[in-house]
């Protein structure tokens, strides 16, 4: 029997709001699982929760910098689709080891990319052409679980786990991204954010037996996102480590 998930599409919102809404899906959402697709306007650099500001010289070249509630390295959100998943901590998708949850999610993403002619595989132990020693950029630091194609990292993801819920979000590059220019991209003229979102939605539905219900952020989620947007953009939080 298919399980019901909410499906949110919030394209073109500002960076602080994007982080605020992902946090809202983690902290103030109801019990239903959520898949959200979004883009960034304006483009922005996001830092990982614990990342040292000084370790990311690319911040000087970004017009907007935010810090995420999740870990990992910096991502330049330009010319890409970002997805986020928020589920209960005991949901089969995320239950157990963190690595296992990445494998499940990446299997669904790889299947969607395969429909678009991209052969994405877990990177394993081989170095990638996109790897850069000592880089603070997420896409230039690869892990065996990361999805890669054309010998470059193609999906940058991170999680935040609370007592009740897990947030998993990630970015897939659609084309050139000025501060992430070594990474794998989709580079298909017929595939923008909405089209890639369609493929991912279909793949997740197929892979996990999900019945997606198109929805909008709730009043509580919107209130939380708008109240917290300034925090994620604030100098104190962004430069605080």
């Amino acid at each position, binding site marked *: 029997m298919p399980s019901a998930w909410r499906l949110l599409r919030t394209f073109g919102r500002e960076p602080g709001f994007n982080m605020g809404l992902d946090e809202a899906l983690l902290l103030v959402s109801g019990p239903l699982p959520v898949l959200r697709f979004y883009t960034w306007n304006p483009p922005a650099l996001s830092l990982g*929760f614990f990342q040292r500001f000084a370790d990311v010289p690319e911040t000087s070249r970004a017009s907007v910098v935010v810090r995420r509630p999740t*870990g990992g390295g910096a991502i330049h959100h330009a010319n890409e689709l970002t997805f986020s998943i928020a589920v209960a901590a005991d949901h089969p998708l995320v239950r157990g080891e963190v690595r296992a949850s990445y494998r499940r999610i990446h299997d669904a993403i790889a299947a969607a990319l395969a429909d678009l002619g991209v052969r994405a595989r877990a990177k394993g132990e081989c170095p990638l052409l996109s790897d850069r020693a000592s880089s603070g950029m997420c896409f230039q630091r690869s892990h065996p679980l990361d999805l890669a194609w054309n010998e470059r990292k193609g999906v940058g*993801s991170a999680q935040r786990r609370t007592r009740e819920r897990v947030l998993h979000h990630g970015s897939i590059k659609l084309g050139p991204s000025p501060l992430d220019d070594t990474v794998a991209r989709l580079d298909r003229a017929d595939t923008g954010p909405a089209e890639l979102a369609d493929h991912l939605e279909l793949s997740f539905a197929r892979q996990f037996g999900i019945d997606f219900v198109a929805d909008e952020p709730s009043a509580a989620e919107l209130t939380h996102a708008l109240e917290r947007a300034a925090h994620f953009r604030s100098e104190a939080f962004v430069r605080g480590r």
Partner: protein
Amino acid sequence: MRPNDRKYTKTHEWVKTEGDTVLIGITDFAVQELCSGNEGDLVYCDLPEPGRMVEVGETFGEIESVKAVADLNAPVAGTVVEINVSVEEHLEILSRDPWNAGWMVRLTPKTKSFEGSELMDAAAYEAFLAAQAH
């Protein structure tokens, strides 16, 4: 069998009485979930400042593996009196000895007794983990 000289939470923290204070840490199960046995995957830990008061279930810190940031949740209410700086600086301690050297926070608890709480003894925690596996 995990140590039976302490209590456990469903979110895989442990709490052990030591005189008038309690020590708090995370279980081997929590460490395994985060890093799948690869201690190098534990990259950062943020523990609270001494003097901070926490309530039961409140997030008192965070720990990061290369793929996730996880909240650390207080098993009991109390006031932080000491943190284990060694763990912050050498996270591999959590993988190698989560029960002794891997203690994270020392609290002066609000109440001395764990009676009536949701804390589990070692046998109940083992049963809880076994049930989770199915």
